[in-house]
Each structure stands twice: as C-alpha cells, then as structure tokens.
C-alpha cells in the first residue's frame, strides 16, 4: 500500500512517533510518501488570525497532493487532522473562498482543483494491521486516549465524546484494554505549555481516571496529547503511566524491539511494564 503522508511539525521530535510509524509501515509494506516541502498547517493558531491565510496554508498541501497523484492525505497528528479538515470543509462549502485560495496558490505556482480526503494514520493501521496470534501482551492493560480532534467536530469516524475504534484496534492486535471515561477529555493542548499550573489538573484528571480503571499504559494518537500527558506526570505525585503512541504498541505487537520504536524517548519510562515476563 502507498500513502501520501503529512508528518506535521511535531512528528520528528515526538517521543518515538516517527521511529515507530516508519518501523511499523516498513513491516507492513506501507510506503510512506512524505509530501515534499510541506509546511505547518497553521494548527489552532491561524484560523484565529486570518481565515484566508489559514485556508491557503492548509490548501498548499492539497495542491501538492494533487501533483503527487494521490486522492488521500494521511496525518498522524490530531491538530493537523482537524485543521486540514476544517480547510477542506470551508473550501467545499464556500465557492468564493475557494476561488481566492486558488488565486493565492496560483501566485505561488501551485494549482488546486480538488480537495483530498483527509485521513488519520489510525485509520490506515486499522486496515493494515493483522489480528494478533500471540498472547505476549495479553496481560498488558492499556487505556486508549483519543484527545479532542479526531472525532470532533466531524463525528464521522466514531462518536464525538465516547469513541471506541482505538479500543477495538488495541484489543484486536493483542492488548488488554481497560475502559475509562477520559478518552476524549481535553489535555489543555497548546494552552498547557504556557498555562502550566492552570492546565495541570486537566492532564492529571485523565491520568488518574485511566490508572483508576486499571490500565498500566496509555495509548495516544497525537503528539501534543502524548507530550502533555507525559510531562504532567513529572511534576505530580500521582500514578506513573507510560504514555505511548498507538504505533509503538502496534510495533510491539508485530514483534519489533522497543528500541526500534523510539520507546526510550518517553519521559515516563515504559521499560518496567515492557520487560515484565
């Protein structure tokens, strides 16, 4: 399988998201075609500054995807996913905005005729990962954490507040899944970086809820969620739960070594739970 991949700015420095995504895709024969010369999607900042600019920044990729000959664009970051989707939705709904965006891109030597389908990496691996045939991780209990922007606002992939697809995925690839109620509670996103004290409680509530329901590891699908939940535990006396990416767990399920999956990059170490016999 070949996919057109948009890594986004946080991918390379995240706690092993890049390593694990690349290792898992290699193993599954998924060819990751990175959009050449991609730029920042604008995240949650640009739409509050200038709608046309935000749309054009995102749509620059739609033009590049078109040049590459792909129909879909895949990203592993919830903020990129929601931002690109918002731009795609606006361009579909608003003909005037579409024309203006086309003009801006034309000025940069780019041509935009069609809007690609924006998909999350989780969707791709849901299709590509084989069912587990081993009991190796059956005793490792995992709490799935979706963050906000996978199922909201569109709710097309799953229910907005209480999705289940990540649980099904983790269960299918051989982990023990613990149900909990914090799966789409907000971690504070970028606000947590500068309003640390004010947002600390948001992450703590999520971690405590997942720990209270008996999980030993958290599975995330977004670099900022992973970062917030991981770093919040450093300044807290509460439970310590390694905050992994779903791709790292997928890699383990495929028999890859923790070092290949960048698991050494987590702030709260996963060594103890992973080396347990």
């Amino acid at each position: 399988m070949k996919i057109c991949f948009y890594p986004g700015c946080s991918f390379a420095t995240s706690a092993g998201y890049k390593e694990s995504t690349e290792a898992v895709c290699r193993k599954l024969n998924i060819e990751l075609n990175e959009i050449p010369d991609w730029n920042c999607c604008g995240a949650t900042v640009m739409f509050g500054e200038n709608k046309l600019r935000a749309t054009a920044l995102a749509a620059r990729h739609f033009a590049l995807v078109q040049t590459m000959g792909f129909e879909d664009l895949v990203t592993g970051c919830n903020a990129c996913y929601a931002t690109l989707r918002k731009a795609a939705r606006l361009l579909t709904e608003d003909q005037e905005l579409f024309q203006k965006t086309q003009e801006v891109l034309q000025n940069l030597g780019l041509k935009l005729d069609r809007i690609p389908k924006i998909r999350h990496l989780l969707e791709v691996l849901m299709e590509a990962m084989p069912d587990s045939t081993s009991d190796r991780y059956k005793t490792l209990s995992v709490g799935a954490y979706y963050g906000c922007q996978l199922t909201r606002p569109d709710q097309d992939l799953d229910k907005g507040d209480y999705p289940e697809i990540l649980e099904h995925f983790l269960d299918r690839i051989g982990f023990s899944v613990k149900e909990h109620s914090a799966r789409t509670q907000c971690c504070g996103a970028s606000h947590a970086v500068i309003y640390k004290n004010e947002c600390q409680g948001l992450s703590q509530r999520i971690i405590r809820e997942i720990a209270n329901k008996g999980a030993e590891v958290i599975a995330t699908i977004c670099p900022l969620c992973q970062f917030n939940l991981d770093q919040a535990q450093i300044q807290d006396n509460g439970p310590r739960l390694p905050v992994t990416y779903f791709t790292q767990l997928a890699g383990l399920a495929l028999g890859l070594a923790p070092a290949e999956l960048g698991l050494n990059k987590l702030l709260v170490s996963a060594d103890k739970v992973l080396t347990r016999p």
Partner: protein
Amino acid sequence: MSQNDTNPFSTIAHLESINQCIQCGTCSGSCPLADLMDHAPRELFALIREGAYEEVLHSNTPWFCVSCYACMVRCPREIPVTDLMYALKEVITKQGTAPQNLKMPDMYQAFSRNIKDTGKVTESLVMARYGMKHPMDALKNIPLAIKMQMRGRLELKAPKVADPKSIARLFELTETSKDKP
C-alpha cells in the same frame, strides 16, 4: 459597559446562529478552560446579542478556547461555537483590542511569525520568541527542555521549507484581506 452602535462582528460567517441560542449553558459546562474565561461561551453570546460589543472586543474568552470542539458537538441548537471563537479572535486581532496582559495572543504571534519566517514551526524557536515578552514562562520550561534534549527531542536547527519566501509571499497575499472571518 460602553455600547457601540455598529456590530464589529457582523461579517462573521454563521454569527446569526447565536440567535438560536437558548442559553442552556451546555457549552460553558463542556469547556475545559471556562474557569479562565471572563465570560464563558453562553455569556459571551448573550453579550453579543445584547449589543455589548466593547465588552466582547476586550473579552479574554476566545483566547482560552482550546479547540476541543466539546461545546460544538453538544450544542442542542447546533451553533458552531468553536468556529465562532476563531472568527471572534480574528476580528479582535484585526481591531487590536485583545487584553494587554494576556499571554495567548503573544504565543500565537510567536507561532505565526515562526511559520512566516520558515514555513514550519519549531517549538524551541516559538518559545524563545514568546519568552522575550514573558521571560519567566520561558525559564520555567528550561528543565523540561533539558529532559527533552537528553532524549534527542529538542530541535536545535530549525527546519525550513525549500523556499521560505513563498510562505512569506502567502502571508503578504493574505495580509490586507477584506475577507469575512
């Protein structure tokens, strides 16, 4: 509270949807950062409907919207709350009325400037620029930055798009935009 006759928000797409608001407060109750807002969303919409535009222009509320979309999927009147918060921010930014002591506009500015200069975002550069205005915040992040560095996660060399001028050009082309927020 001073009143302004002309509605500075009138060009916002779907602003009329707030006339459907039944003031149930589901949005405010769903908001993870409502505690930090001077007017939680329900109240802010009431103020706009009352014509208290000055109050809204100086409100910190849109700046604490974290884009979690919890309010938007729960609103029984299907008001696009999060989208409206983005549009309010755009109007407030263009009018230059964001509260002076607020950190988030400075953060957003540092973020946007990083994109304009390089086409991409490098966390350490955004923090450095933001830290010029808020040195204590930047200093508080140093221990964490060291931990990140030890795990090979701190980007010291800023990645750029092949032609950063093209992104700067995109910014220029959209600068004087009279487009509706």
